[in-house]
């Protein structure tokens, strides 16, 4: 445990700890308020027609906030020196090589996916998805106040996508990934010479006994077909759901395009933990292997 | 200057009140080895300087059974006392291709005057280890050379031209030393009261040490014995 403590207490990891604390606090705070509002109904402030001007009433408070941050930063810099390390050396990469802390979740993805999926496709989808939210979110409720009951899907998706997939993976990447990007438990010492058994196999081989590659090292079309089918089945779930629930209010309001985009983004997001769990529990390497990309 | 003067003065005063002489003799036991005759054929001047053949001075046993040319000195017990070198020069002569005296003591900082009294070339080569070595030629009769030594040690002096020539110089940082003469006795005068280790050195027989206590009353005696080898 003292190893974990040592890592946590490193000056360069302080922002992550702070972020963790703030994230938990604000989530708790928002949920508390939301519950309160759900029980008591919409709060007065949200209903008020009478609004105040930004200048000077908001700016005054914001300036106070700026002062607080400045005070904190000043005292922080007195107490802790800049955590500089050795000069960068192109012929000598550090082990483990870690991205800036806010990208460690993405770096963690590299363990489970091809670089271009983890590093290009997924981040692009995240950004595009975030851009799309105002267009696909047609629920007008919850503006200016906290509520859970009125937008459970949105909040749960956020909790899953941000808290679990983003924050938790950053924590994992920072505190539990040691030399060689190996996973270390909090009580383990980060040993440079740690050896990890490499026993991953592909999905088709594991479950259907169909190897990905033939004896001459060319791809097995049967394995490709099975893997492809699994992926298609995965994305078929929302289609089935659409037909089952096509008469509900919500789906009708959304329309097929909005529903399609939302469902694609949602299923892609959900696919990530599925792959992670498959890898961690069943040592599945890839679901489908194609000449162009592997999933 | 003022400080050292003070020390010397106080020592002088103390010496007069609390000082004693250490005296004794150096006895030789056994049969004296026969001294080798020096062959001076290589230089006519040397040969002509002597009517009778000269013998080596390595071991000279006196008629009374004492040993000549033994250097006796205080080895230990003076502490950190400092002694100013006497102004008087020590003379070290080369007469008839023989060093006179054969063993000589000198104090650090005191001047040694090396004289060539022969009408031939001599060179004085010191084989010192602590002090810088010197090797100076004296091609003419009456030439003089003055040297000072900074560090205490006993070393040999030789002449390369005349291979038989050799002598020993003992350098001390105090004035309490003596060389035994024809009667084999020595006196270390006016030693301040105290306990001392006295050492006797001989070029062939090495060193012997003895302890002596000098009290206010004065005299103390100490004898040394060297045995034939």
């Amino acid at each position, binding site marked *: 445990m003292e190893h974990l403590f040592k890592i946590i207490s490193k000056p360069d990891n302080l922002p992550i700890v702070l972020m963790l604390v703030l994230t938990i606090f604000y989530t708790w705070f928002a949920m508390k308020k939301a519950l309160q509002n759900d029980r008591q109904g919409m709060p007065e402030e949200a209903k008020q027609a009478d609004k105040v001007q930004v200048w000077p009433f908001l700016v005054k408070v914001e300036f106070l906030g700026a*002062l607080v941050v400045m*005070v904190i930063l000043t005292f922080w810099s007195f107490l802790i020196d800049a955590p500089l390390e050795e000069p*960068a050396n192109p012929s*000598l990469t550090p*082990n483990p090589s870690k991205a800036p802390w806010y990208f460690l979740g993405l770096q963690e993805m590299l363990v489970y996916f091809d670089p271009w999926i983890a590093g290009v496709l997924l981040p692009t989808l995240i950004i595009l998805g975030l851009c799309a939210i105002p267009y696909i979110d047609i629920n007008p409720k919850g503006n200016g106040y906290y509520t859970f009951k009125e937008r459970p899907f949105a909040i749960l998706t956020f909790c899953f996508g941000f808290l679990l997939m983003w924050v938790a993976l950053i924590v994992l990447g920072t505190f539990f990934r040691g030399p060689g990007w190996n996973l270390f438990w909090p009580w383990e010492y980060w040993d440079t*010479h740690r050896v990890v058994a490499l026993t991953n196999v592909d999905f088709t081989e594991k479950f259907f006994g169909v190897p990905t590659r033939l004896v001459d090292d060319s791809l097995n079309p049967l394995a490709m077909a099975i893997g492809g089918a699994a992926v298609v089945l995965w994305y078929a779930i929302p289609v089935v759901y659409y037909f089952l629930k096509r008469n509900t209010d919500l789906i009708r309001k959304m329309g097929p395009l909005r529903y399609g985009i939302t469902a694609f983004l949602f299923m892609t997001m959900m696919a990530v933990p599925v792959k992670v769990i498959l890898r961690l529990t069943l040592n599945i390497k890839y679901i489908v292997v194609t000449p162009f990309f592997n999933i | 200057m003022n400080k050292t003067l003070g020390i010397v003065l106080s020592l002088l005063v103390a010496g007069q009140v609390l000082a004693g002489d250490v005296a004794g003799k150096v006895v030789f036991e056994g049969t004296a080895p026969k001294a080798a005759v020096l062959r001076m054929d290589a230089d006519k001047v040397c040969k002509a300087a002597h009517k009778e053949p000269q013998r080596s001075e390595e071991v000279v046993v006196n008629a009374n059974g004492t040993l000549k040319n033994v250097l006796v000195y205080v080895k230990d017990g003076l502490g950190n006392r400092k002694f100013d070198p006497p102004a008087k020069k020590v003379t070290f002569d080369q007469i008839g291709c023989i060093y006179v005296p054969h063993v000589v003591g000198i104090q650090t900082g005191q001047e040694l005057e090396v004289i060539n009294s022969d009408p031939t070339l001599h060179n004085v*080569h010191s084989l010192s280890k602590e002090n810088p070595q010197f*090797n*100076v*030629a004296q091609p003419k009769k009456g030439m003089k050379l003055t040297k000072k030594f900074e560090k205490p040690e006993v070393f040999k002096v030789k002449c390369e031209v005349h291979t038989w020539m050799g002598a020993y110089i003992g350098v001390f940082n105090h004035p309490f030393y003596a060389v035994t003469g024809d009667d084999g006795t020595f006196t270390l005068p006016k030693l301040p009261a105290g306990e001392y280790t006295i050492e006797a050195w001989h070029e062939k027989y090495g060193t012997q040490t003895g302890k002596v206590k000098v009290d206010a009353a004065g005299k103390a005696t100490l004898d040394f014995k060297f045995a034939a080898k």
Partner: protein
Amino acid sequence: MFKQRAQIPIEQRNYSTYYVVLSGLLFLGTMWAVVDEIATRRPWKHHQKEFYALADSLLQQRIEQAAAEIDSFALDEAKTHLKAAQDSLHGDRYRMLMKQYEATAEKLIEETREYQFAKSRGDEAYYFYKKSRLEGKEDLAQKRKLEENEAQMAQHQKVMDVLQAQKDSLLAILNEYRQNERKARNAVNDLLKNVEKWQTRRERLRSAPIEIRQVMMLDYDRNPFNDPKARVDRCQTCHLGWNEEVMENAPEPYKKHPLPDLLATHSPEKFGCTPCHRGQGAALTAGMAHGEDDHYWENPLLRGKDVWASCNECHENESILAGAPEFTKAKRLMIESGCHGCHEIKGYTDLPKIGPQLTGISFKTTPTWVYRWVKNPKDYNRHTRMPDFKLTDEEAEAATAYLMAVSEKSAFAFAAPRGAYAGGSAQRGKEVFETVGCQACHVVGAMTKVREARGTSYDIAPELTRVGSKVNPDWLYDWVRNPRHFNPTTKMPNLRLTDSEAKDIVAYLMTLKDERELPSRELDLASEQMIRRGEKVIREYGCNGCHLIPGMEKEGRVSVSLSNFGRKKVDEMDFGDTHVPHTWHDWVYNKLKNSRVFQTDRIVQKMPVFSFTDDEITSLRMFLLAQTKDEPDKRYVRPFDRRQQNIEAGRRVAMNYNCQQCHQLEKDGAYITSIIEETAFHPPIITGEGAKVQEQWLYGFLRQPSPVGRNSVRPWVPTRMPTFQLTEDEINKLQKYFLGLSGQDLELRDYTAFQPDPKLLPVGKQIFEDFQCLKCHPAGTTTAKPGEVSTSDLAPNLQLARGRLKPEWIVVWLADPGKIQEGTRMPTFFPDGQSPLPDVLDGDAHKQMMAIRDYLWTLGQPVRTTVAVR
């Protein structure tokens, strides 16, 4: 409170308390920053204050001491003199004289003006008179006027002369007064010189500001991306006393640097401290500046012996560094231990293999001996350089089989018929062995003085204590007569033994038997399988790193390059199953102590086990620490120019042939002197050989040293300069090496062209006779009968000088022989540069030396060498 506050409408909320509190905090922060800046984060300020206080008190002591050392009587006297002299400057007489002087001077000025006026008037009259003459009428009035004025001038001149003389004499008297005062003042100053020196120093330190002392070296470093980078060095901010004489015994960090000579060429004012000591130059607190508290600083302070490692950054090409004996020692250790055989080491890739070639081993010794040797060399000879490969019995047997098999194919044949060695006397052989110089390299039994003088844990040549049980006498006879016959690359020189001497030595050495009872083992040497296995063993263990082995001439180095080993990370080091602390230093120490220490059941290690002493291990570790790719910018490095290259090339030849076993060279060596009591029998110091002897002579001598006996340079020395059978290239390198050490370059010089000064010749002859040079030096064939003390046993034949010595060197030699050749029998005739002959050549010592030299040049025949200098 917040609840209440929430009741107030936003427009009416008051934030002034928050603002006041936050502003207060910000103000506090600013104050904190100021305090940090001035005191808490600036420990160097405290150090500087402490230093100045300490220096002040020490200087005070020095001032008092210097004052106490002044002869107070003399000072009082000098002061009285000065007082008197000063008083006399203010005395009545001086003042009166001064007045007289001034009055005279004034009068002189007046008189001079009168004279000038008269002259001017006369000139005018002259002009008019001349003009009237030209116009044809002679103006006599003007002529009279001219004459009048000329008469006046003469009169004035007379007065002026008198006045001038008066003035001069007065001035002389006045000057005497002034000079007296000046002299008296100088006398006082002279006595107070030391006191004043320390006082000035103290004043300077007292006025020194408290500030950061910084040395900046532009473009000194390169960052990992190869861009130039400046180095900032602030060590002297705390280490203020590095150049302060009084700080000799002061505590750190104020202590004076212990090696001022080294600093003379590596000035901290130019280079700072970190180029040698490493550390984090820009930091200003001890732990960070030494780099030991900064985990990420890659160049922590080098402590203890390790400090010499940094020499390599600039001097990697030089194997001897005059100012760094530890560094020189480490390099020699590395070269002699043959590290370069298996590892690539920058700058040392073309060194010769250190072991003998193994082409004809069956002629030399028996398979049983070879087997025991490769199995455990230290068992036969504890001081061998051959390390222990920890071979299994079977591996050793296989290696023996291979070596024997290739030896069978060798074309070697003994020069003399078998059995020709017989008939020697062991008794005489021992005498020859102990006189001609074998012991310079070879130890026998208890004769270990040379080994001890050398101070290494290994010998440079095999110990011969058990050689009688090792070698074949036919081989030994062949070997001692001409070692290169058996092994053309051997370092063993030819000692020019006569046949009977060689027989005696063989007889003696064959008596040196291995008396131990050794277990024997049946060896299978003939089977093809065994030989093939042996080849594999030898190849795997890299025996060819040190030995030339037939069939493996082109094999490369078997182990890793050490070129950047000093920067190897602990993470990259394998500590095996040991509990050795995980540091670079501990890993290297343990590896060198026992190279198999980190071996595990899976990781096989092949590096053999050496038997270095702890001191040697730390030296080698320092050398390894020096193996980095760090290289300062060229402008900070002494250029490794042509002369340096020549010196280094020759140095390596000299090192290869172990010249230093006998000769002192570059302040080291002459180990053989530990067994030669008489200093006159010591082999000469050859550091200055380049300045001493003529190039042609040295060439001839290195090819074929002068024979023993009456015609050699030093016939009285029994030890022989052996014939090394050097190649032309090696001789050439040695020539340039010796010349380079003396600051000279190899050039053709015709020494026969040197002409003695005919005017000096008779004087030279006279001095030569006065000094009785012939008392020791022969000049011609000697006539001494055997057994008699002969002059030729004392000093070199002066007839040789002309063909051997450089004319300018003779003069330097005569001035002080002991300075060039310590312990020489040659005395100086000019102690302290004074000639004992004050009547000759006005007592000019230098001229007298030239006269002797010129006279020497007339002795003997001019030598025309037939050997060309390349």
